[in-house]
């Protein structure tokens, strides 16, 4: 990992941190999220091709958006339930 572009390394670490912060409120619990996230990142650790790493970062960004969307949806559903069930 040290041999590759340090800028990419920082990007990976940043997205990892972002995802961790997001994972705090994950419905199945933070520990569940953390172990899975860690596994997902660790499974890609032998990537050396810059293009592939960039792809991976893009995928991580996508996952981040998905999680955000999940939270919005969850909030929407909760609110909806509270207002509709009268």
């Amino acid at each position: 990992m040290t041999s590759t572009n340090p800028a990419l390394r920082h990007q990976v670490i940043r997205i990892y941190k972002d995802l961790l912060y997001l994972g705090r409120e994950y419905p199945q619990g933070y520990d569940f999220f953390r172990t899975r996230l860690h596994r997902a990142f660790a499974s890609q650790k032998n990537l050396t091709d810059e293009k592939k790493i960039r792809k991976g970062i893009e995928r991580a960004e996508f996952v981040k958006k998905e999680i955000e969307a999940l939270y919005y949806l969850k909030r929407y559903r909760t609110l909806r339930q509270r207002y509709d069930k009268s």
Partner: protein
Amino acid sequence: MIRTAFLRTARQAIRSAPRYHAPIARPVARSSLFQSKQVAPATYFQAVRSYSAHAGLSKDEVEGRIMDLLKNFDKVQDASKLNAQSHFHNDLGLDSLDTVEVVMAIEEEFSIEIPDKEADAIHSVNQAVEYILAQPDAH
């Protein structure tokens, strides 16, 4: 800032103390308090208390808090190897992602934000302690 202003007006009222110019950019609270104590101990205002003054972190305290944090971190495989000199990777068996998590936990513990570059340089308990001690706003 308010405290300096307050002290200054108080001093004017007392008029016994020689006027001195309180430096604003330095750690204002402590130095101004300390000096005014020396200047006029008898008329020193009891009402002025530095609740928000930075108490400073001792090295032992920082070390203890970081150790506690690592003790509770479930990925530390060999807790017996945990001491002030432990290296995250070599001694504790943490990979780089775990290190990121540890640094995040340290950030939270001391309510500071560590920039990516400096966070990347923290690889051992010792380095973390050094870094925290160098931060004036860590607590």
